[in-house]
């Protein structure tokens, strides 16, 4: 599964295989809140938000080849900004808040990007880790704003500026779904564009890309910022979901869960992180019922299994399965 989908004339099968996963996922997500039991509702919303977070990480890791150990920094900042603006500054408008978060995470990512992209390989990992930890400890220390270890709570449902909405969990779920849909669409367009294809080229052979005329640093930098902004948007949604923000949102655990979600789902497939999120969040939910104290152990085991055995991730294997099914279907029909 290379990554580029440049075809001169799309054949029907290819068009279908490109869109079927989105249709399937879309249908599942629309139907789910109606068929799932009420105690699973909030978990579903969490899946949507984490899916967005994971897709933002996939943009920089799966597509551009830059693994970041501190991606939760933007998630946390987005979440903190939301909670702080609402609770400490009395801001109401959802649109204004999300705009602030986008601007703030863009600025943060543009600063961090300059620092991180000065090095590569191991050092890039360490720098992104350090930058993430910087945000974590900074948030911990700035107790008046962030509530430190206790966090900051009291965020109500979003104020969309539309009168007459009586919020409940299901409406919130659909709002998040719509935002996820929009963000996914934007990300998808970016990744299918010449810019996005260049990112794949950079991942595959940076040296060649430079010789071909691509300013690889600039591409990585822009991708870094875009990824940070989408993570920040996920953070905003999470703040409304959790009704506040805790220090965990910018912590190492959040960064590493995102990594796990992406590798399980497939780094090479656009909708891979969505599948990965469903699996991980679902798993976490059920483990928390039956073996609550053992979740980290199971999480760790999944990491190890993914690295040692699950080469490519589930998304890629699903695509292969689909390929075989449609091949079989074609040969049976013909």
């Amino acid at each position, binding site marked *: 599964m290379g990554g580029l989908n440049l075809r001169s004339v799309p054949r029907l099968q290819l068009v279908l295989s490109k869109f079927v996963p989105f249709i399937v996922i879309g249908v599942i997500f629309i139907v789910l809140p109606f068929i799932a039991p009420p105690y699973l509702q909030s978990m579903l919303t969490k899946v949507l938000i984490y899916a967005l977070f994971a897709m933002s990480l996939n943009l920089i890791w799966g597509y551009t080849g830059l*693994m970041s*150990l501190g991606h939760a920094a933007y998630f946390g900042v987005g979440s903190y900004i939301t909670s702080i603006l609402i609770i400490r500054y009395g801001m109401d408008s959802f649109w204004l808040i999300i705009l602030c978060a986008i601007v703030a995470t863009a600025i943060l990512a543009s600063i961090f990007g300059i*620092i991180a992209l*000065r*090095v*590569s*390989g*191991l*050092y890039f*990992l*360490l*720098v992104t*880790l*350090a*930058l993430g*930890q*910087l945000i974590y*400890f*900074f948030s*911990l*220390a700035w*107790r008046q704003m962030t509530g430190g270890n206790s966090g900051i709570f009291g965020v109500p449902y979003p104020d969309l500026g539309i009168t007459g909405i009586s919020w409940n969990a299901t409406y919130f779920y659909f709002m998040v779904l719509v935002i996820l849909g929009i963000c996914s669409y934007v990300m998808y367009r970016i990744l299918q564009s010449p810019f996005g294809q260049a990112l794949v080229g950079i991942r595959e052979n*940076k040296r060649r890309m430079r010789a071909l005329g691509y300013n690889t640093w600039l591409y990585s930098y822009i991708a870094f910022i875009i990824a940070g902004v989408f993570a920040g948007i996920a953070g905003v949604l999470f703040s409304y979901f959790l009704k506040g923000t805790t220090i965990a949102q910018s912590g*190492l655990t959040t960064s*590493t869960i995102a*990594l*796990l979600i992406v*590798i399980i789902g497939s780094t090479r497939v656009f909708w891979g992180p969505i599948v990965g999120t469903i699996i991980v969040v679902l798993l976490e939910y059920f483990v928390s019922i039956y073996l609550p*104290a*053992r979740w*980290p*152990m199971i*999480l*760790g*085991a*999944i*990491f*190890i299994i*993914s*690295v*040692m055995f699950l080469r490519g991730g589930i998304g890629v294997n699903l695509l292969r399965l689909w390929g075989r099914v449609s091949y079989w279907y074609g040969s049976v029909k013909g």
Partner: protein
Amino acid sequence: MDLLIINLLNGVCFSTILFLFAMGLSITLGIMGILNLAHGALFMLGAFIGLTVSSSGGNFWLAAIAGGVVAGIIGLVIELVFLRRLYKQLDDQVLLTLGLVYIIENIALWFYGGSVRVVQPPAFLDFPIAIGGFTFPVYRLMIIAIGVIAFIVLWWLIDKTRVGAIVRAGMDDKEMTIGLGVNYGLTCSIVFTVGAFAGGFAGLIATPVIGVVFNMSMSILLYALIVVVVGGPGSVVGTLVGSLVIGITDAFGKAYFPSFAMFTMYVVLIAMLLAKPSGILGRKIWED
């Protein structure tokens, strides 16, 4: 002035712990290019095993060695079973060793519970001495002494012995070293195990000072990473220098700016990575 000395001594004490612990990380990073994020978990494990030995009546030093041995064995297993296959696959090393951290920490939680445990230092060292108007635990001076001895031993081992020469050669050119007929794999395993032993040992002797708790793996590991980056991977003197810088900065930081101490630590790390990634005294490790 006395307070200054106290903080300095605390800093050097912590530096010693960091030095013993970070050496393992430094060498595996320098020689094998392997980033083992589970090294912190070995520290924690060594401390807990030592705790068990100590509370069942064992002598303090026996406990420390036991902790080291168990950490060493587990380290060896990790290297043989997992890390060998991931040579030069940095992303995978990170993910895999992270997974190991989660598992090991959870096991520790299972067996030892969630609260911070402490081991009493050996009786003959368990008293304070007066420094100016303050008291300072003698045990911590002992740690510093151990550190000095360890440094001399390790420096001699790496710089003066054949094994050390192989290790250093391996850092510079792996293929060449193998080509010269050296059993590189065996050397790697030995080095890894010794490093893990040192980590576990350091874990136990650190408990009277910092205690042990199941979720300390990553925080102590991050300290060690900063040490290794600042001092330079693959260098004994470098690790010493890094440990001193970080240990003393941390002690003073925690004394005077407690909330921003950790923050400062990471700023130091980032500054170092940008200015001179190979550290103060390190060899350059491979990059892509």
